[in-house]
């Protein structure tokens, strides 16, 4: 199969959907000639023209609201917020409007929009350009939250998100943009709410999100040499969550490590832990549920400090080793 980058897969998904459906359009800051801050939409202005690639001035609230309004009259906008940190500026329209309009209007309206945004640290962009704020949106009924890890997943999930009739917060990771993988050329969808077992194992289940999936897979490789067999699950969509795949895996392994980049307190791992603890998997647990997440602090600028703020491969190895020894 053809290999392309995560970034190219995002662009291909948007391009193919725009070719298929004339109601799909892009709106965002510097997405035109500049190609987007990360070059995701590079070349799309030439292909589709300024009528469908709407380059905006610095108006996060305005452009997000414009996407909500366009969706309300039957369009399928894809809004890009340049850094996830800036969703704070857009959140009124996302949280109070997009998420609630359908319900408030008695089910008589739909908001088929996607808000794409890159999250995560590792680029030396410091505290205001490195956050992972996914759990804020997970907490808002009416939104769906998607966080893909591989080029294959990002294409299929983005196409599914564009075709979904609900507002979807689609979270990419800056460090994943250049990663490569097999991606079919033709359009395809991956159902929202379907997790993927990225590696099968028998001793410990790791449920990880976004770049932590790649790091967990790397850790699992090393741990296999030590005789520890790790199963890695990527929920891919945080909301709706595929509880079944996770519960079944934990029942099999009896141990679970939850890994994400976002700050630990109030993070998604807390939700996952509760879901597992409430489920039939509880009785199968051979050790307490473990969380490995970002420190409860802003992301620092300095390379070494930044590196030590969020989980790295060696932290995952260590946490899994400890868990392997742990008993109830």
């Amino acid at each position, binding site marked *: 199969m053809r290999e392309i980058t995560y970034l190219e897969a995002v662009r291909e998904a948007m391009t193919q959907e725009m070719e298929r459906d004339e109601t799909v359009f892009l709106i965002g800051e510097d997405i035109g000639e500049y190609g987007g801050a990360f070059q995701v939409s590079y070349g799309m202005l030439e292909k589709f023209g300024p009528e469908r690639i709407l380059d905006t001035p610095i108006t996060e609230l305005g452009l997000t609201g414009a996407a*909500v309004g366009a969706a*309300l009259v039957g369009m399928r906008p894809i809004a890009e917020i340049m850094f996830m940190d800036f969703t704070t500026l857009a959140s009124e329209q996302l949280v109070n409007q997009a998420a609630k309009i359908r319900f408030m209007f008695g089910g*008589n309206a739909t908001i088929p929009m996607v808000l794409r945004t890159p999250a995560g640290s590792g680029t030396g962009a410091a505290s205001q350009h490195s956050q992972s704020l996914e759990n804020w949106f997970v907490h808002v009924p009416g939104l769906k939250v998607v966080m893909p890890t591989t080029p294959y997943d990002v294409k299929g999930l983005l196409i599914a998100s564009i075709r979904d009739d609900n507002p979807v917060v689609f979270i990419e990771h800056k460090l994943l943009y250049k990663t490569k993988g097999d991606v079919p050329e033709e359009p395809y969808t991956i159902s929202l709410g379907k997790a993927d077992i990225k590696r099968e194992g028998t001793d410990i289940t790791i449920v990880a999100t976004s770049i932590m999936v790649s790091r967990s897979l790397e850790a699992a490789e090393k741990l296999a040499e030590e005789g520890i067999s790790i199963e890695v699950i990527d929920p891919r969509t945080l909301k709706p969550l595929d509880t079944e795949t996770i519960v079944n895996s934990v029942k099999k392994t009896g141990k679970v490590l939850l890994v994400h980049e976002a700050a630990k307190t109030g993070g998604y791992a807390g939700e996952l832990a509760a879901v597992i603890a409430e489920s039939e998997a509880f009785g199968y647990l051979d050790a307490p549920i473990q969380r490995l997440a970002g420190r409860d602090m802003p992301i620092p600028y300095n390379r070494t400090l930044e590196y030590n703020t969020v989980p790295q491969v060696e932290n995952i190895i260590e946490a899994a080793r400890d868990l392997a020894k742990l008993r109830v």
Partner: protein
Amino acid sequence: MKISKKEAKELLHTMYQIRAFEEQAEKSYMAGKIHGTMHLSIGQEASAVGSISVLKPTDYIIGHHRGHGLTIAKGADLNLMMAEFYGKENGYCRGRGGSMHIADMEGRNLGANGVVGGGIPMAVGIGIGLKMQKENNVLISFFGDGAASNGAFHESMILAHLYQVPVVFICENNQYAMSFPAKDWTTSEQLAARAPLYGFPGKAVDGNDLIAVREATKEAVDHARNGDGPSLIVNNTYRWRGHSKSDRNRYRTQDEIDEWKEKDPILRFRKLAIEKKWVTEKEADEAEKQGYADIESARQFAESSPEPSVETIEEGVYAL
């Protein structure tokens, strides 16, 4: 702009419907029949009716939290509207939205909004959508003087101009943002004068003069429909009642309220319509009587309507 006799009577009738709806809403609330809050637009009827009367049925509106008048002016089914106010299953929003969120998607009323300024950014996107759909429809986006101080306003005006959207922004300056007086920070003229700074026309209008509102809106709607982009109109008006049910009117005097009651927009149009012989005294009385009768029948419909069932509580959170 010419007004036919039939049209004049209908305009008067619609204004009376709004007045009657608001009075009934207040009465029902005082009688303990309403669970939530309400924001009454008594005194602002000419702004709602005058502006929306120049739209075609295929045109759209998006409103603010004081939206009963706008909804009626856009031709809502009064039964479904009153049922929604009562929180009933057969209301416009199945009792999920209430007074602050009444939307009539079929009637192309894209809803009231509980967040001050919340509808303005959406208006730009609706305009983008309408432009792409090439059906030559326009949108009126209503908001208040309170929203005009909000950051959403500024961003939206910039985008509206940039994309030349077919949208008429109408600021209903009713003089108070909850309790904060507009006169302490702006005037209708100053608000309207912002528009040319963003790059499009703006006009302040006597919002209690139905004819003036109609003419200004017609000009702006034609401008939008011709592909010439957005406009801003500021209708200078006044709300007779408090902001909502919690209001004790501590921030204004009874004299001021009485002074504005003298400028009643309905009586003003009624007088003019009789003077111009668009309607007779008798026809004006009929319009009034009919308006109140329409609302009384809507009240009966609402009160005899079913409550939503708890089994359906989560319906509509997501599109399936």
